[in-house]
């Protein structure tokens, strides 16, 4: 078996990644724009290129409940969802993280009703930032595939044991076809060891799982969960390093920076819109403008130190996100602002750009406009819808 190159969509890349990870149980419920992931997986199970139990469940709540149940006997699991479906399983998200079940899930980022809309924004996952899942945001199909493999290695790591959600912008990534390198199964097996855990029901030593912990004990369990999530920062780097050695594709941990060493004006964003920013930044840099990009790859654990370092020399920073916490500001902005405020640094001017809600296009002109706003000393609106 050798790696191969294929012209596939983001969803198909995810399915390919899942297949390489050899999950025992897949449970999923269809929702646009996640559907093609679970369609491809169903085909793989049918033709036995993937030997897994495939559960056709009756809801997203059941999908994640089933994955938790399977994880609770020591099985590797996968599910995928989007938007309303993610919200419908919200209870189970907390359940999986509290129980330390390393379920891996793909979420196709999609707007949340009302008004109904099937296109991409990130209000679904960002509104669930506090549910204790590792949250990653891919930029393209290749990264989506690779992140699935990373996800199992990270989530199942004994120091982490925390479920992981890989977010792909709905349609923009999920349905866009790109040339993707699909690793050989033998290499994937070298990279990803079988799932081993003591956090399971076991006939050799029977266990009670998912118990009640009263006021005397409860907080300690939550604190352990927090510490495990913090450990994920280190584990993510270790996993990416191992991946880079095996597959020669290197990733940069919790965030990726572009020209931040000398940039005065930086836009912080996440997901596929970084692809819109890159050529604009290149063009502006060619004109001598000191602009840069931070692409957040992980919202949880949050890249606290990395953000401080990347933005240390900036005069002004714009946070561009497809999200709004009504009555305040974008959630990514809140997080970035907090990271900067709690550091004893010179604080750059900060602006929040809200865009792309319900799939609204963010154009190259919009990006240029945002940089010009950053350069302007005029404070303007703190939160600006573009």
């Amino acid at each position: 078996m050798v790696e191969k190159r294929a012209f596939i969509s983001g969803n198909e890349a995810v399915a390919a990644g899942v297949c390489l990870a050899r999950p025992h149980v897949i449970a999923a419920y269809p929702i646009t724009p996640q559907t093609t992931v679970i369609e491809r997986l169903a085909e793989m199970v049918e033709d036995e290129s993937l030997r897994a139990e495939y559960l056709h469940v009756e809801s997203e709540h059941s999908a994640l409940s089933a994955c938790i149940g399977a994880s609770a006997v020591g099985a590797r699991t996968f599910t995928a969802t989007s938007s309303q479906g993610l919200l419908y399983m919200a209870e189970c998200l907390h359940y999986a993280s509290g129980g330390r079940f390393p379920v891996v899930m793909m979420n196709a980022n999609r707007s949340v009703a009302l008004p109904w809309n099937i296109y991409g924004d990130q209000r679904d996952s960002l509104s669930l930032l506090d549910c204790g899942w590792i949250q990653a945001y891919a930029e393209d199909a290749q990264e989506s595939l690779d992140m699935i493999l990373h996800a199992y290695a990270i989530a199942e790591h004994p120091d982490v044991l925390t479920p992981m959600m890989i977010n792909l912008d709905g349609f923009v990534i999920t349905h866009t076809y790109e040339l993707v390198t699909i690793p050989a199964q033998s290499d994937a097996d070298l990279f990803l060891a079988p799932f081993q855990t003591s956090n399971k029901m076991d006939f050799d030593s029977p266990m009670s799982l998912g118990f009640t912990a009263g006021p005397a004990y409860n907080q300690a369990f939550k604190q352990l969960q927090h510490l495990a999530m913090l450990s994920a920062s280190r584990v993510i780097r270790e996993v990416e390093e191992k991946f880079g050695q095996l597959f020669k594709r290197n990733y940069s941990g919790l965030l990726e920076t572009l020209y931040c060493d000398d940039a005065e004006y930086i836009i912080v964003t996440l997901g596929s819109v970084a692809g819109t920013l890159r050529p604009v930044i290149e063009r502006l840099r060619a004109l001598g403008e000191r602009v840069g990009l931070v692409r957040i790859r992980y919202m949880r654990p949050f890249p606290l130190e990395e953000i401080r370092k990347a933005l240390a020399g900036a005069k002004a920073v714009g946070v561009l996100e497809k999200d709004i916490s009504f009555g305040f500001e974008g959630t990514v902005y809140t997080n970035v602002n907090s990271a900067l405020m709690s550091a004893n640094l010179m604080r750059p001017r900060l602006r929040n750009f809200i865009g792309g809600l319900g799939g609204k296009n963010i154009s190259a002109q919009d990006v240029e406009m945002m940089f010009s706003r950053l350069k302007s000393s005029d404070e303007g609106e703190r939160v600006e819808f573009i």
Partner: protein
Amino acid sequence: MRNQAEKKTSIRDLSDRELFYGHKACPGCGGSLALRLALKVLGERSYAVVPAGCMSAVGFIFPQMAFGCNAIISTFAGTASMLSGVAAGARALGIKDFHAVGFAGDGGTADIGIQALSGAIDRHDKIIYICYDNEAYMNTGVQKSGLTPIGARTTTSPVGQRLRGSVNRKKPMFEIVAAHGIDYAATASVGYPLDYLRKLEHARHVEGTSYIHVFSPCPVGWGYETADTIAVAKNAVDCGLWYLAEFSEGRFALNHNPAELTSVRDYLMGQSRFRHLQEEDINAILAQREAFWTRIHREWRV
């Protein structure tokens, strides 16, 4: 149909092993008895899945763990889906000779958990789902569920000027699961323990989904003496407000077909939740009983 030669379950054949022990259920709890007996039959190689409700609240309070076998508290709505996941996971890992058994209350089954139960039955997943029916949300303080009988006083179906307890009838869960074409379904009562044990024994061998609905009185919520749980559970069957039946290979069977039903009035007046009922209420319940038995005799041909 059922193998007529199937061995009659004897008390002496039952395991001495106690797999639900030291729990914090109220004294005289019918639900805890239903659970304990089920685990006696199903044994140590069980994965018990227990949603929010009385049995999870009394069975897993760190560091006091009352289940002697593997067990997990599920999401409230997710008993059946978590069971499916457990069974699928174990199967995929090559684990053999196990039971995935759920213990959900009436609310967890007929209300919030019915969607997941429906899906699991549809998939014919090899799981055993036991509904211990104590006819209200007891763990949260006796609120009305979809299986609260008509006329019962609960904290959300109060007795006042306009209302005299619950105005809904019990959802016919047994017939609802049977309508799915389930592999095996049964009703039972802790008042008829041998019948219940036999049904558990049958469920052990079913290749597919089993559902057992066991009538499990609650002294606290129903208002009777703790010692009377078995007697109340038996009376419910004898007076015809509960019944012992099975559904297997597409056919219904009645396991207990009393020639003469005992007094509904005595059954009702023995419990404080019904004592407010007036003559017309009791007559309405009697008429419903009549209609029920007439219908099942006709439809089930039993």
